[in-house]
């Protein structure tokens, strides 16, 4: 990808997709200098915590669903008495049977970044609950890095550019069938160079290329996204360790660094929203967003003056 602000392509990037060494190289060349400016000496520690991301990167020309491939991979590894590498990333050029939450269809033709990250669940529940937020922050940062400076997060982790959705995530728990090890399968779908959408998504979906006005180097973007995931998932472990030591969180006023990052990228707070478990099918209600709770829940003020913390479900903007 060519860019005027030094966001150049990785040297020696493979034609078939980003490899682990490409992600590492991007982190060394770009991520560490960038983070040092804001996070100083803690930068290497956070990146070490997140270094499992992209430990193995598996690339496919086509899959039905990346999540299914991840489950099959875990099952096969366990049956072969082998360990699954946490951070394994499965990427496909296109998916033929992808879907979002509530079995919603997700259009995944060639040109987008479609895949799944296998995270061996080693986080405490208090940290694990931030996985969704961390994934959204990572994607929003990567999209901005690639030129869409106005990309914003809509709670929980929808990435919008100009109010249209450019990326979505689906996180599912999975237990290995033999050893019952717990995994989080972090599914990601990011519209990069795919510019056509089904009729029902024409007004609500967009792609990075459409927004920046030129094709984007998909391999480069993959490395950037995985580097941002390295940082943001690393934050979960870093802050968990701080808290367990009794040091509290590291953000301003003792706030969790991930929540601080989420707030900087989101335009949700202060918005008028409709909310529900499934805003397209369930009974919904309207409210005004007043803030984000320490546990990542969305604080809403209802029209009768009462407040509600949304821990699950989804929102759509009304204003």
């Amino acid at each position, binding site marked *: 990808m060519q860019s005027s602000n030094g966001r150049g392509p990785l040297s020696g990037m493979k034609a078939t997709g980003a490899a682990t060494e490409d992600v590492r190289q991007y982190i060394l060349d770009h991520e560490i200098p960038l983070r040092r400016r804001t996070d100083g000496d803690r930068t290497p520690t956070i990146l070490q915590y997140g270094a499992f991301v992209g430990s193995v990167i598996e690339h496919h020309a086509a899959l039905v669903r990346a999540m299914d491939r991840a489950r099959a991979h875990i099952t096969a590894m366990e049956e072969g008495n082998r360990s699954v590498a946490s951070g394994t990333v499965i990427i496909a050029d296109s998916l033929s049977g992808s879907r979002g939450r509530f079995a919603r269809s997700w259009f995944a033709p060639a040109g987008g970044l479609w895949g799944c990250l296998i995270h061996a669940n080693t986080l405490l529940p208090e940290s694990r*609950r*931030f996985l*969704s937020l961390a994934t959204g922050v990572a994607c929003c940062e990567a999209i901005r890095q690639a030129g869409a400076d106005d990309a914003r997060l809509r709670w929980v982790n929808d990435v919008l550019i100009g109010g249209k959705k450019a990326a979505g995530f*689906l996180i*599912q*728990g999975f237990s290995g069938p033999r050893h019952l090890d717990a995994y989080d399968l972090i599914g990601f779908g990011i519209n990069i160079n795919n510019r056509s959408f089904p009729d029902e998504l024409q007004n609500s979906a967009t792609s990075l290329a459409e927004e920046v006005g030129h094709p984007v180097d998909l391999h480069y973007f993959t490395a950037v996204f995985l580097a941002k995931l390295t940082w943001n998932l690393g934050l979960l472990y870093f802050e968990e360790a701080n808290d367990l030591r009794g040091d509290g969180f590291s953000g301003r006023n003792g706030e969790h660094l991930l929540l601080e990052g989420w707030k900087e990228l989101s335009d949700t707070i202060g918005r008028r929203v409709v909310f529900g*478990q499934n805003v397209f099918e369930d009974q919904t*209600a309207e409210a005004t967003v007043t803030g984000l709770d320490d546990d990542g829940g969305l604080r809403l003020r209802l029209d009768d003056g009462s407040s509600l913390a949304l821990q*699950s479900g989804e929102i759509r903007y009304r204003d």
Partner: protein
Amino acid sequence: MVHEIDFDEILGKYRSDPYDYIDVCATHTGLVRCLVPEGGEVAAPSGEWLHIPGTVLYEITRERNSKFVTSHTNGTISSIHAELDGRFVEAGEKLMTIRHPMKKKEIIENILKEVLFLFPAPERAKYFFSLDIQSRIEKKGARAVTINAGDEIITMSLMKRDTPIYYDGEPGVIYSVYFRPGISVSQGDPLIGVCAPEKLPLIQKIITRVKADWDAEQ
């Protein structure tokens, strides 16, 4: 979980004292200020999503962060540790007790909880039956749905992370459902109560007996 019930003893207990006594303990260490008097009435959370908090019971302050703790049930403050008011307390220290008047349905559920296998919530989250279980419940009703260990029965939903929950108890029918879609369940609270087929007559006996005794009392 018990297999036999001494109805006379249990019903006698509920007849003589039809209340549940709920201890309210300090949520964490801190300076406590009690905000309800002994004998005072307290209200439970209300609203469509139980989002309107119950009566404020006490304020606890740690490192200049104050938190107001509210009642999770309705009732009367039956006792209060007034000597702790204005003092620094440890996490878990008992501050007061709420006497909650029990309804017939709650009494039946309390007795059933001693007989049913209770399947607990692994995390504080929202819970939904899995698609397969939900469709079977819609067709036949929960009490006609048999589940076995290893069945995917529930989806835990938290911050857009959905985790399938697998049943790990004894085979049986879903007799009681303790969660409502859209309402968060605390970690450890029961999600469902499962009854082994051979215990169904016992369950029916409990319900019939409580209803008969209670209605006769009224």
